[in-house]
């Protein structure tokens, strides 16, 4: 089994990270914002796995599992908040949340 070069893996992860970031920046729908966050977190996970494979150490995969848990927790809280938001405003548009400013 020939390993994929480290740089390729990192580049892919970086691309995913950028996609996620752009998603968070541009989407108005909160559900999609959360999904974009998932992409960002998973891109970091991918980078860890690639690097772990490169160094032939288990730590990268451990870190990936950590990130998985983290992302799940993040989404759980996020969805809970989205339900509250929908109940109150009947919308998932993120722009309703701009009362605090100045």
């Amino acid at each position, binding site marked *: 089994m020939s390993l994929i070069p480290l740089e390729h893996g990192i580049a892919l*992860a970086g691309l995913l990270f950028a996609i996620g970031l752009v998603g*968070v920046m541009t989407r108005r729908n909160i559900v999609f914002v959360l999904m974009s966050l998932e992409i960002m977190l998973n891109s*970091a996970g991918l*980078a*860890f796995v690639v*690097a772990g494979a490169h160094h032939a150490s288990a730590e990268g995969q451990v870190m990936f599992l950590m990130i998985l848990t983290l992302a799940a927790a993040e989404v759980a809280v996020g969805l809970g*908040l989205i339900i*509250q938001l929908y109940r109150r405003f009947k919308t998932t548009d993120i722009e309703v949340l701009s009362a605090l400013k100045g």
Partner: protein
Amino acid sequence: MDYDNAARDTINAFAPSVSWEELLWLLPHEILGATIVFAMLAIAVRRHFFVTTVITTLGLIAAALAASMQFSHLVQGAPSALVTPLFLIDAFAVFFVIVLCLGALALAILGFGYFARLDDAREEFQLLLLLATLGAVTLASSAHFVSVVIGLEMLSMALYGMIAYPIHSKVGAEHSLEAAFKYLVLSAVASATMLFGMALIYSQTGALEVVGSANSMLGYASPLALVGVMLVFVGIAFKLSLFPFHLWTPDVYEGAPLPSVALLATLGKVAVGAFFLRFLIHSHLLLNESVTLVLALLAVASILAGNVLALRQTNLKRLLAYSSIAHMGYWVVALLSGVGLGSQNMAASAAAFYLLTYAALSLGAFACLSIASSSESEAGVLSDYRGLFWRSPWLALALSVMMFGLAGIPLTAGFIAKFQVFFAAVESSQWGLLAALVLGSAIGLFYYLRVIYQMLQPAGEEGRTLRDLGLESVGSVITITLVVLFVLWAGILPEPLLVLIAALFG
């Protein structure tokens, strides 16, 4: 596992089992964890806010005591311990564990008074507080990126809940949902960025340790690793709300209930700051010119932006948010004056002292605000405090002490802290930073004194009546008194504290 490399001695040295002795080193963490479980069970049996608060405070006191015992051992020369590769238990870590536990104790007491009349489940606030404390303690004692992530996320997750806490409440708390959402999304972005940075570092050095030789400056020769470091900095800068990652701060401060804001401003900043300090000390990153340039830019921008934004702020919570931005800027100046470079480590002492002082001052300020408020009606606007000196002089006096401290006026801890930063900056000839420091402090003086000026105004119609203090606030009053005494003591007789903190880096 054929990935397992025999050369990775760090794992082998501490895996596979954890000895009793090592478990003993983690006693504060364990006590906190056990208290969480116990409190959860107690809530399941019967909901009672007072009982939950008592359990919480007892657990925090026990953890602080355990940490104090460790501290006295360590100061007397006991060797510091690397407990699994994840935790480094040394005087530095244990000192911050004590500080964090005591801060959490104060917050539990304040939260009790504040949420006493909430028309919803109140007990879980203490649970979340304990969880956040465990996260903070983990972060402050971490020696490895894994424990950093665990600690940071435990802290943040608990904070999401705490910021949104009065979400079901019929009265008051209209913006907590917005605040929580903003914090969640932005904090997740920051976390992802930080994780990606860690991944980049790991890809270049093959090590996840924060302490130890693998991730020292030598390991960062590769540019990709430097990018990783910068991304980690972005995450940290977000948590410390440095410019331009600060935009969430005022909104969250304004929208969240006061005890949660206090936690964000004290435990949140102290834990992240302690980790950052340790990271810089062990990695010698300040030898890299890009790193110092970036940090200097962040510091100057934060000092100027924070102070300028606070200038005309009429909401006291937002004002404190902007002031926190500026203060974290000052703090970075202390770091830049040579953390991890000189043998004396005066800069590290200055930074640690500053962190402690800032936490005490903002704890005191938020405590004063929260004793004047309750979950139903918050006194957050500056005009609420108009004429406070004539209505409740002691509270006004306490708040004035905090404002003087934040402004860095002599005879308060704030002056000593700022003086040390000045001095460290002078010693290391950081003239540009020093100029920002002076300018920022001058602007700062204006808006801190404006708060006091408002309190000295004759009490008009608009000054609203503050919450009547019942039995639930006895603890809050004692807390405020202790914080005021600490701030004055550290301002008038700082020498013992200075010696203690210098010993952390000895």
